């Protein structure tokens, strides 16, 4: 492409061509969903097993979470630096998850002072994140995963004891792990058809 004068039809063609090029690449963001999906489900199931084996202080399994947050931030910064472009969608998704990340810290912090069902609120936040991301990138499995979380955040209030941990694990499997797998497959398919 050169710096030359064009006519009106060429102008429209260039605008259309550039808009199409910006749509060409979809980004594989399944890594974050896998990371958190496996971390939360492994912690929840491990704590459940430990409780069933009558261990005490099982809550320490959740110390993996701050470590995961550090790893997440590190990967995000690295990806941001090497990214060739940032779309409006990327910015919107990033903003949603930043707000949810802050909400997670507030809710977990509050749970030490105020009595409420922490897991119910966490599942609700998972649902909001996946549902919104699914709507933005128009990916149905994420929207469905979000809907499953909306149901589970209500259902968990009618279940007592350690079994709540299994509901928590189920929520991240439905909202993070399964959609992440499908997102990755979709990305691979997109790449192979683009070649």
């Amino acid at each position, binding site marked *: *492409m050169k710096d*030359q004068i*064009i006519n009106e039809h060429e*102008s429209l063609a260039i*605008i259309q061509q550039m808009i199409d*090029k*910006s749509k060409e690449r979809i980004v594989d963001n399944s890594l974050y969903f896998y990371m958190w999906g496996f971390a939360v489900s492994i912690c929840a199931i491990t704590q459940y097993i430990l409780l069933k084996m009558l261990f005490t202080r099982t809550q320490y399994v959740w110390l993996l979470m701050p470590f995961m947050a550090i790893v997440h931030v590190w990967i995000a910064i690295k990806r941001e630096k090497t990214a060739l*472009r940032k779309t409006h969608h990327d910015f919107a998704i990033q903003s949603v998850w930043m707000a949810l990340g802050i909400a997670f810290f507030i809710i977990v912090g509050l749970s030490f002072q105020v009595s409420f069902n922490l897991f119910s609120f966490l599942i609700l936040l998972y649902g909001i994140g996946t549902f919104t991301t699914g709507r933005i990138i128009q990916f149905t499995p994420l929207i469905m995963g979000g809907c499953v979380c909306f149901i589970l955040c209500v259902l968990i209030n009618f279940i007592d004891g350690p079994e709540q941990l299994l509901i928590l694990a189920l929520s991240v499997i439905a909202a993070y792990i399964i959609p992440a797998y499908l997102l990755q497959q979709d990305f691979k398919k997109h790449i192979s058809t683009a070649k």
Partner: protein
Amino acid sequence: MRKFGDLDPLLHSQLRLAIVSLLVSVKEADFSYIQEATNATNGNLSVQLTKLKDAEYIDIKKSFENNYPKTTCKITKKGLKAFERYVDDIRNYLSPKK
């Protein structure tokens, strides 16, 4: 009605229009991404980006990534308005209102 010749001369050029159209579609883009999308040469792209920057249509951020220079471009509000006006002008030219 504005005539075709009245179109923003800064946008009414193949490469500059392509750059601005691309930056309207994405939030920000790296120099190499713009180069790949527009098929422009290094030198020509640099010149056109500077012209758009001087007109305050785009922002250019220079940084270093692994010791290599990295140039990131982003459209400004002024650039976005100019682009919208350009598209309106073309639309009016192609189907003038009676």
